[in-house]
């Protein structure tokens, strides 16, 4: 017993070394796969491995997802930028297309009539209760003069009233100061087209005995020397025969949507100008 106590450590070291050597010898002789100890150790370690690997894989997965999200965010921003650029391109293309359509209509007018036209762009609108005028980007430097008729597809819309060097004002037919001699295309009845503001125009001085119907087309009569004869002005939208006066009360709508005017033509032949 004394011997064991005295040499306890040495015996323990020896026992461990010998057991290790026995395991090595056993494994070399019978193969490591046969080892019962190995199987027990693996079974013991396996749950711990499972927990660690699960945690690490979770972290790796989260890390990977984070980078994936960062990548997606960058890609998203790039794509959004691209979409905005493409939207801008589409808008410009659409704008170009619409402008081309409008200009095509205007050109069809210039081809149809043997007049000299000047094209202009609308740069401003005066939409007060009494005055319905628009500003255009052409003036006397372009050969424009007061009184020249202004038209937009498919017909007349007004005349120039103030012409400066580079800008002009157009008095629209719907302005209450506007009075134009006109005729009903179907039966050639003559009257005066007057502006009625937001209600459009009215055809005045047509006796109640005359046959004017809803849908009749109103054209310029050519009287007065300002507007050429036979140009479209508007269409009758209502005829009131029940009023107390001597004349019919006829409401006329312009052919052109004046609120959407962007380009127009000025009939700039010298004969139409008012000196």
């Amino acid at each position, binding site marked *: 017993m004394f011997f064991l106590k005295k040499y306890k*450590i040495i015996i*323990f*070291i020896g026992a*461990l*070394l010998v*057991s*290790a*050597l*026995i*395991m*090595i010898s*056993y*494994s*070399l002789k019978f193969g*490591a796969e046969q*080892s019962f*100890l*190995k199987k027990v*150790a*693996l079974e*013991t*370690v396996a749950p*711990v*491995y499972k927990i*660690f*690997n699960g945690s*690490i894989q979770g972290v*790796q997965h989260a890390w990977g997802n984070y980078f994936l999200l960062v990548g997606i965010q960058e890609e998203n921003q790039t794509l959004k930028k691209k979409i905005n650029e493409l939207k801008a391109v589409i808008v410009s293309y659409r704008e170009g297309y619409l402008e081309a359509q409008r200009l095509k209509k205007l050109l069809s007018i210039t081809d149809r009539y043997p007049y000299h036209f000047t094209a202009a762009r609308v740069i401003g609108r005066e939409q007060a209760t009494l005055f319905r005028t628009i500003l255009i980007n052409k003036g006397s430097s372009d050969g424009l003069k007061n009184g020249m008729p202004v038209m937009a597809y498919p017909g007349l819309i007004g005349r120039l009233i103030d012409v400066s060097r580079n800008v002009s004002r157009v008095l629209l037919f719907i302005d209450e100061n506007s009075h134009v001699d006109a005729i009903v295309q179907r039966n050639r009845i003559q009257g005066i087209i007057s502006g009625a503001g937001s209600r459009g125009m009215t055809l005045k001085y047509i006796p109640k005995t005359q046959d004017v119907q809803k849908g009749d087309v109103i054209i310029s009569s050519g009287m007065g020397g300002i507007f050429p004869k036979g140009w479209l002005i508007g269409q009758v939208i209502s005829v009131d025969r029940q009023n107390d006066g001597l004349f019919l009360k006829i409401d006329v709508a312009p052919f052109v949507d004046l609120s959407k005017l962007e380009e127009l033509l000025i009939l700039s032949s010298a004969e139409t100008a008012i000196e």
Partner: protein
Amino acid sequence: MLHYLSLFILAILLIVLQSTVTDLIFSSYFMFEMSLVVVIYAGFRLEMMKGLVLTFFLGLILDCVSGSVPGLLSFIYLIVFLCCFFISDFLDTEKNHVIALFSFICVFLKEIMLQAFYYLAFDVGLRPYVFAVIFTQSLVVGLIAPIFFYVMDRAGIFLYEKKV
């Protein structure tokens, strides 16, 4: 008894942590043997019985987990532990460069022993890049070992108000 059981559990945790974290960081290019640093630490700081038990457990579990010949790493670890234990009387084991250098040598020799065993037992030839890998592995462990020693010493002071 409880103390030795806790050593066994700690050994398992260390081995599992070592193999999983090593795989994560070094992508299986080489193994970072924290277990060997623990063996060196045990040789320098722990008493003989506890150190022997911890070393044997570490070696045995690593043997079983790594797929090497059972008992081989236990044997080598025991040799390393005994070397550390007996040499610690002659070295200033508080110095970082001593720890680093000794750890470097221990890892290098352990790997050489391992290669030699496989060469002798299974006639596995040494590949040219093996020494480069062993050197790098030893260098990494040598650099990490002083940090491990410092952390363990601080933990000992924190827990027992003295070094282990």
